[in-house]
């Protein structure tokens, strides 16, 4: 069993799921490619940020704007949500009860929404310190990069709600399974992007 080739990134359903496992291969591969394309997108937004980080044009600088504690909490929230999503994936793979699957998904959702809430607070406090995107090239780049990740997370949250809705309506059918599996990839991927933001924007910015 364990010598089986893993068919696609993320937790594989495994042979126990029969044709649903096989059918996931192309779908997951497609989504994986999409994520790679998205990764390039983020990479370039990062590159833009790096080229503009010194272009403060006399406006506020990273030190004056970033709140490392809040960012640290956000990081923990996201990390925890990745773990809880992992638990949801396990519930799916090992066919635990639907309630358990939904439960883990909801915990993940709560963590995600809390993250967004913290992030919004960060932005608002930056605004108050004249840290608005139209103030300088640096702030433009910041407000391109970090909210872009935030938007992705928000999209993930909406998707998550829809999946829960689908499960409520149709049970854990093929499409719901594939949905959860793709969202899992998406969620873990966003985590990786956040590590880059955490390190490049915040830690390095305050270093």
């Amino acid at each position, binding site marked *: 069993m364990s010598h089986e080739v893993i068919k696609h990134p*993320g937790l594989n359903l495994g042979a126990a799921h029969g044709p649903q496992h096989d059918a996931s291969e192309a779908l997951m591969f497609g989504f994986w490619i999409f994520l790679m394309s998205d990764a390039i997108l983020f990479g*370039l937004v990062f590159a833009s940020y790096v080229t503009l980080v010194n272009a403060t044009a006399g406006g506020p600088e990273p030190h004056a704007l970033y709140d490392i504690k809040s960012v640290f909490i956000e990081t923990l929230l996201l990390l925890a949500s*990745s773990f809880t999503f*992992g638990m949801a994936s396990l519930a799916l793979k090992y066919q635990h009860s639907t309630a358990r699957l939904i439960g883990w998904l909801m915990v993940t959702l709560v963590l995600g929404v809390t993250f967004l809430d913290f992030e919004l607070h960060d932005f608002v406090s930056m605004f108050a310190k004249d840290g608005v995107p139209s103030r300088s090239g640096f702030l433009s780049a910041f407000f391109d990069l970090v909210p872009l990740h935030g938007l992705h997370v928000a999209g993930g949250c909406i998707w998550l709600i829809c999946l829960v809705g689908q499960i409520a309506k149709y049970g854990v059918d093929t499409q719901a399974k594939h949905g959860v599996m793709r969202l899992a990839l998406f969620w873990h991927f966003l985590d*990786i992007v956040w590590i880059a933001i*955490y*390190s490049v924007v915040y830690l390095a910015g305050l270093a």
Partner: protein
Amino acid sequence: MIDQFRDDEETASRKLEERKDFYSYVWGFSLALAMTLVPFAVVHWGAMRGLSLLIFIGAIALVQMAVHFRFFLHIGWRQKREDLLLLLFSTLLMVIMGAGTIWIMASLAMRMSLPASP
């Protein structure tokens, strides 16, 4: 009877697999947690400075990404070839594009500032 036995064996192996999968997430989570905490502490309490700090942050970040890929996204050597190749190719492109951009922009910035004295 034999069927029953086979089923039991299968459940047992699935149990085992589940444990393995579960610990993969636990490991991933703990490692990631550590790698979030350490650079945070270093920056927050100013244990390092300048370039070495930047390198440290960067290195830890890379390791943490690898950890996420391994334990959360389950990317490994038993992967289908195209999944792994895709990841490597994307990484290559990201390096070319990112490094190229920074190289070019830095050169331009250097050569285009207003000369100090006329």
